[in-house]
């Protein structure tokens, strides 16, 4: 059983053909379209805005970077021309104030033993460009903001100095402060410091800029220091080699005293004229031996004691020929000095012997004596040249001619040469001249030469 099927007829009469409906539909469609268009437009504008914003931000960034770059360039250029550390420091302080609008700027550097930060340069705008040096002070590590930076090696910005317990109000005080280390490869050289009367004046940008300048400065300072060091070393070396040449020349000159050479030749000539062939031969032999030894050793810095004694003996033998019986000599040597290889500087003793002869013994009527002694004192040698001549005072009165005055320069050079041999400050070195006296009368001269070993 199926029930009855009822058909219900529903007729929708859509009045689409009516104008009102059409208009309604049209306006609805138009509205929707308009809305969508508006929405899109807004979105595009938003995107545009962010784009512009972004551009602007980027431009800003470029500008500061450009500015920073310019300032950096400025500093690196101006540093390039400087050859003096102080000049650099003053230049940087001055330009930081001029370029960054700071009120003051101070630069501290380590003192020589790196215990304190010392104010080396400083300028201020506030005090009508008066140099802030009127309050110079040194800071130990940890003292004040600068001291803290020196200790930690990290830059500090203090927006409000009143609230920072590390702040030391001394001299000129501001409300905000920045302190940036000057570093060269982790080594702290100094601190750039600035204070400002505005609260929170200093920003990251300042920090970056000063850090860059600090690095530039550090490099330059280091290169100047290295340069100066090099120049100093070179000058020292030049000086030493010049002195050495001078010494060698003066030594050579005094040993090769033409006086001695011609007198020796004259003495030998006598043997020839007197037909004394044997003596002529002997002394000509001695003379050539001595001259050869002098020529061979004059360019060596040191000579073995044995060799030196041999040369002195030859020299004295030849002089004895000239002075005859008036001259007696003796050479004493500690036996320990003859073993091994004890050396002394070349040509230091002979000038003193010659001096003793020309100015001491020559003016005596007879019995001149010269005693030469080499004494071993372990860390140094003592060489004595003692004569019983007329003494320095009378000799000075008697010598009239320029040529013969013993060069005191020679003594000084020899003393310097001996000093250079010192390995420890307490070892004696140099030359000591003692006027000998007997019963109140001059009885000769004693020269002591101390040679460090």
């Amino acid at each position, binding site marked *: 059983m199926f029930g009855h099927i009822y058909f219900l007829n529903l007729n929708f009469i859509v009045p689409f053909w009516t104008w009102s409906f059409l208009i309604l539909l049209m306006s609805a469609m138009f509205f929707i379209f308009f809305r969508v268009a508006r929405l899109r437009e807004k979105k595009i504008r938003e995107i545009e805005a962010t784009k512009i914003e972004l551009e602007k931000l980027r431009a800003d960034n470029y500008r500061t970077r450009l500015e920073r770059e310019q300032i950096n360039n400025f500093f690196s250029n101006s540093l390039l021309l400087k050859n003096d550390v102080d000049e650099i420091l003053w230049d940087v302080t001055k330009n930081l104030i001029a370029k960054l609008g700071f009120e003051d700027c101070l630069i501290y550097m380590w003192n020589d033993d790196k215990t304190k930060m010392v104010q080396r340069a400083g300028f201020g705008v506030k005090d009508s460009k008066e140099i802030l040096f009127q309050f110079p002070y040194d800071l130990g590590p940890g003292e004040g903001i600068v001291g803290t930076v020196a200790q930690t090696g990290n830059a500090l910005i203090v927006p409000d100095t009143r609230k920072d317990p590390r702040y030391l109000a001394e001299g000129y005080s501001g409300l905000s402060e920045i302190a940036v280390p000057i570093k060269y490869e982790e080594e702290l050289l100094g601190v750039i410091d600035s204070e400002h009367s505005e609260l929170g004046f200093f920003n990251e940008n300042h920090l970056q800029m000063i850090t860059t300048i600090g690095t530039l400065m550090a490099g330059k300072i280091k290169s100047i220091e290295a340069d100066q060091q090099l120049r100093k070393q070179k000058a020292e070396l030049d000086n030493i080699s010049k002195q050495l040449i001078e010494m060698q020349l003066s030594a050579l000159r005094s040993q090769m005293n033409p006086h001695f050479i011609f007198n020796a*030749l004259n003495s030998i000539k006598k043997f020839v*004229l007197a037909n004394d062939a044997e003596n002529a031969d002997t002394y000509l032999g001695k003379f050539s031996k001595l001259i050869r030894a002098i020529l061979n050793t004059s360019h060596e810095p040191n000579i073995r004691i044995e060799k030196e004694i041999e040369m002195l003996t030859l020299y004295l033998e030849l002089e004895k020929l000239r*002075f*005859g019986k008036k001259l007696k000599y003796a050479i004493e040597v500690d036996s320990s000095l003859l073993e091994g290889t004890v050396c002394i500087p070349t040509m230091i003793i002979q000038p003193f012997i010659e001096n003793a002869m020309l100015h001491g013994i020559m003016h005596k009527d007879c019995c001149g004596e010269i005693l030469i002694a080499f004494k071993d004192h372990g860390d140094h040698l003592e060489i004595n040249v003692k004569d019983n001549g007329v003494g320095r005072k009378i000799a000075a009165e*008697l010598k*009239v*001619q320029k040529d*013969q005055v013993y060069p005191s320069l020679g003594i000084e050079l020899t003393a310097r040469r001996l000093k250079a041999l010192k390995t420890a400050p307490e070892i004696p070195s140099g030359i000591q001249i003692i006027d000998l006296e007997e019963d109140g009368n001059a009885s000769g001269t004693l020269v002591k030469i101390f040679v460090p070993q």
Partner: protein
Amino acid sequence: MIRTIIIEDEQQSLEVLQLMLKKFSHLIEVVDVCNTPALGIESIQKKSPDLVFLDIEMPKMNGFEMLKKIDPIDFCVIFTTAYNKYAINAIKISALDYLLKPIDKDELAKALKKCQQNVERKNVGEKMDILLKNLGQQRAFDKVLTLTSTDGVRFIKMKDIIRLEAQGRYTKFYLNNKEVILTSRTLGDFEETLSANEFFRIHETHIVNLLYIDRFHKGNNYVLLSDKTELPLARRRKEEFLKLIPKI
């Protein structure tokens, strides 16, 4: 015979000289030898010699000081020394004689010959005065040059000499008072002595006093003196001359 005294403190040198003089025994006679200046003075006064060989370097009193104590000096003096640049230059300027040890026999002969000629002996006293004065002078221009010319001996202050010019084997001296003196020595004889005293040989035939150089033309290498003479500068001397210029 030339009566001679030797004053020499060193036995060796004395013997050398005595041995060398033996060859001239036909000419001279050694009347005394003294080994100290004091003995020398005594001997000179006693024996009035014609010639004295005098060592410069002697104990207590040197040869020059010894001469200061003798008046009049009417004998020839030949100084002897092994080496003494300063004294030798002074002796040369004063036209006196000297011998360098070891003594050369030719030079000894020359010196003795000179002494034989009386001209040399006449003015010994004056020359000695000049020598002693010159020894005391530090500055070159204060020294006095002794010239033997055909007219006799002349003493001329160094600062009065403008220039020297060679005339064959003779030398002409031009002085700042316009005087010209002809001497019988060659320009070369004067060169060494004068070079040590602020003179310079600019040319084969010219020595000039640096004091009188007015200008130097670099272009044509001429030296203009303050008396308006123009002299050529030898090319080979130019470098050395230019080194001296800043000194003027």
